[in-house]
């Protein structure tokens, strides 16, 4: 059974960077969203197993997505991938339920380490 992945980032390049970094086991069924609103719409209509989420986005940002997921009590593994690397921001996203915070630009070895830690590899 394949793992359904959602990548949410307002940058086309960043989405491609994440997609290209994913292990083969996670890259067969990938949905893309360019802001938090699109991501929440996909999450409400499809079964998504893992979300890679940017923070600084228009319409609804990453924090908004995390807050909405928390409010819905949705148990979804979220890996935040962001350029906003302030320690306080990292604490915030983890407090909102994210599994991990990864800094941009994404490093494959760091991504794999987190995926392994959370049972996706």
């Amino acid at each position, binding site marked *: 059974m394949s793992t359904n992945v959602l990548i949410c980032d307002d940058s086309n*390049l960043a989405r491609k960077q994440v997609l290209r970094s994913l292990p083969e086991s996670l890259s067969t069924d990938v949905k893309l969203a360019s802001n938090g609103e699109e991501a929440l719409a996909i999450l409400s209509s499809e079964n998504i197993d893992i979300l890679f989420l940017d923070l600084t986005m228009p319409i609804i940002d990453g924090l908004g997505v995390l807050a909405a997921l928390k409010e819905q009590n949705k148990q979804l593994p979220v890996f935040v991938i962001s350029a906003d690397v302030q320690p306080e921001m990292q604490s915030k996203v983890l407090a909102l339920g994210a599994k991990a915070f990864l800094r941009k630009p994404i490093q494959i070895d760091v991504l794999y380490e987190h995926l392994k830690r959370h049972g996706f590899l």
Partner: protein
Amino acid sequence: MNAFDLTEDQQDCLQELINVAMGQASDQLARYLDTFVYLKVPSIEQVKAEHLFDTLNYESDATAIVSQGFFGYEGIRGEALLMYQPKDSHRLADLLGYEADELTFDEQIIDLSSILTTTFLNVFASQIDNQMSYSAPRLLSANIGKVNEHIQQQAFNWDLALKVRISYQVTDYSFNCDMVLLIPEAAITNIKAVLDRILAEF
């Protein structure tokens, strides 16, 4: 579309490079001010030389402007201007709050601008396998005419300005500043080539 215009993909690529650079500059700012900085999506706009000051829409006095030159490999160079709005200059003075025997406000705003400019451009450069050197930052006269004069005195003829509007919202205060990168013709062509190289990898 002229030779200096970016394609949609080049614009997206540049935006992402700037986002990453801005994220780390904000982290430095947060540490410098010992506070949290809320980061917004930066707006990036290309402005023709003759229209730059029309788009900035600044008042002619009390605006703090810090200028710093940057020089990288492959002919990537330019002048970075950090421009603070008049109302924010006073907020910055409060935010930077210093004791009488410490730095003056002018010195502090030069320090702050240098941190923002060099952190931003160092991270930007590292993403394109480049490395930057900098001239000493200078606080320009608040008079917009003087700023114009300063820009005209640059060692290069710049044809296009890349205006990056960065909004820093700090926990207790908020201020906006524009980072304007003045880039000469040859450097624009080089930046476009770098962006194409990155895009080709995807």
